[in-house]
Every structure is written in structure tokens, then in C-alpha cells.
């Protein structure tokens, strides 16, 4: 599994011969882009997995058989809330939280 450790090259001598990327994008915490936050109402959740399936940012994770938003990476697009057939997800302004 990739990890989110940063790679720094202090000299050109340390670089690979050409721009060959070996690190993971997990270093980029894209959650900082977010203005709207999805809030999941687990009472309403029927565990259908649709929110997980349609997340373009791989930011709905399944923890103990329930969906959870990974706020480090979720950009707040709102697809999960829009697609949830049970209205179990609402989008809330970050500033109001």
C-alpha cells in the first residue's frame, strides 16, 4: 500500500534520470478545497454502497460496514448526496460547522 510520505530531493544528483514519480498522491490533502461538507445520517443509511460507488475522489470509505467521509480528501462535490436514494446525505456549508 502506498503511504503519504513526502519525497524531497535536495540536489539534482539525487533525482532519477528523468521525471519518474514513485510517491503517492496521498500527500495532497485535497480536503482543503472543500466548501460544502457531506454529512451522513447513519439512521437513514441502508448500506447500499451507492455513495461509495460514485465518489470521484475515493473519499467515501467503508468503516465497520458503514459509509464514512474521508475529510482529508473529500472535495465536497456533492455527488454522494445527490445520488443517495434514501436522502441520507446532506451537504452543509463548511463555514457553518
Amino acid at each position, binding site marked *: 500500500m502506498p503511504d503519504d510520505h513526502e519525497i524531497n530531493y535536495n540536489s539534482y544528483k539525487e533525482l532519477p534520470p528523468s521525471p519518474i514519480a514513485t510517491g*503517492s498522491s496521498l500527500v*495532497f490533502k485535497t480536503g482543503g478545497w472543500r466548501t460544502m461538507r457531506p454529512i451522513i445520517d447513519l439512521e437513514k443509511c441502508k448500506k447500499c454502497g451507492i455513495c461509495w460507488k460514485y465518489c470521484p475522489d475515493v473519499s467515501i470509505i467503508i468503516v465497520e460496514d458503514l459509509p464514512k467521509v474521508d475529510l482529508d480528501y473529500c472535495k465536497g462535490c456533492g*455527488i454522494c448526496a445527490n445520488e443517495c436514494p434514501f436522502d441520507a446525505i446532506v451537504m452543509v456549508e463548511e463555514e457553518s460547522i
Partner: protein
Amino acid sequence: MKLTIPEQELMEKGHMACLGCGGSLAMRYLLKALGKDTMMAIPACCWAVIPGVFPYSCLEIPLQYVAFEATGAAISGMEAALKAKGKKDGVTVVGWAGDGGTVDIGIQALSGAVERGHDVKYVCYDNEAYMNTGIQRSSATPKGAWTTTTPVGNTRFWKQTNKKNIVEIMAAHDIPYACTASVAYPEDLIKKAKKMKDIKGPCYMHIYAPCPTGWKYPPEKTIELSRLATESCIFPLYEVTYGKYKINKDIKDEKKKPIIDYLRSQGRFRKLDEETIRSLQKHVDDEWIKLKKKVECFGEE
């Protein structure tokens, strides 16, 4: 939880795609289907930026960034080298390009690669314009769409010509497999990607991948809009397997939605007049009938 698509993720979090990006969903699904033994070439397109800057990448597969028009040639070279090294077995070589890199600047190399019969899979994620450079029209842009190079002004309007039908162009190359897929139907997309993986020879997949930024709609509507595109027969889901046509999501006449809902939900079509909308509806209807005729004449027995 009941999952309808594979759990494995080979596209990591932290990528640079815009909110609600259809192109990133398309990649996520494709890699779920193809697995880690996949080698990929990506030309200039949104996906040249989405994985992230050096030395990072969101894709857990070997990947080469290639010149805009070179995807077909790059995958040909990869496949030939893997064969020469005795390492081709079990490895899927994929070209992954946007619509401009496929239907415009990359069409020659693509045509050459599939004609030569390399065992390669070419996947186009279609967001219907040059989105990475800032929404310029490509030949995959539909008629009626606003882009920054088909602006709506006093004397000149939206794009005046129809979208190039690349799937039929690919099918006409007599390749083993050509198909469409949509991010709204990941199960269908994954099934087709797995089918491509199992076929030895060149295959083509064209994925409908909406772009909230370029199409001017709210990012949460990506899936809804994709579904609407298929339900109104603007983007039918079908496949051509060894010349045999099959519609994967049949739309009954009574269920077929008018395209007006689709058009009205996107800013890029905002200024269309009634007459143009009627002509676009006729074009969609004609193409749908044409496709059904092909299934009738050249369908699977």
C-alpha cells in the same frame, strides 16, 4: 455492505481533478476492472495533470506520459517491447486519452495501432471539448454547444457541426471489440473492461465523462446528467463484438426522454433556440434508429 463493483482501488485519493469530475470516475472504474497488471500511456489531457506533480502519482500502475498525438504509437511500442521481453502474458496495455487526443490529434496513431492488430486497449474518456486547456471545441463537441472557441456572440453561435462518431470509425477498423460506456453505469463499464481484457487484440472503449467545469452544471449532477444522456439516447450504451452489434441498455420508445431536459440542465446549451433544439432532437432520433437497425441487421444471434 453490498458492493456492485470491485472493492480494490488502484486510483488513490489526493488527485487533482475538479469537483465532480467524470474523467476521474472513469479511471477509477477502469482500473477496478483491469487490475494492477496494467500498463498505461496517457497523452496531454486532463489526466496528464490529475495524477499530481512529480514525484507523486495517484495511479498504482506503471504509466508513461506521452505526446498529445502519440498514444496509439506509445501503446504499440509498449506491447512490442513486452512481447520481445517475454513479459506480455497477463499484462494489459492501455491507452487512456481524452476526446481531443483521440478523435482529433491522436486519430492517426490510434487508427494505425488498431489496424496493426496490437494486443492493446484504447480508452477515451469523452468530456466533449479540450477541457485541460480551458474548454475549446474538439470534433467530439456536440452541435449546439458553447465552448471558448465556439462562443455565442452577435454574428456567430455555438458549434455548428455534429460530434464525430469515433466508435463507428473504430468498429469500421474491423477490430474485435468496440463499445461505449458511461460513468453512470459502472457495472456495465466494468463488465466491458473485463471483456476487453480477455480479448486478445485491439479493443476500443468510449466513456461518457461529464465535465462540470466545462459544461457549466453543478458538480453533484455528474451521474444524474450521464444517466439522462443515455435515457434520452444522446449517448446509447452499446458494443460491437467481432462485428456484432448489441445495445446494452435498451430504451423503450415510451421511456425515451426528450433531449430538452438534458440541454436545459447545462450552461453550455443555455442560449439554444427552439429550432436548433428541434434539429438536435431529430439528429438524436435518427442516430438511435440507425443504431437499432444495425442491431437488427448485425446483431448477436
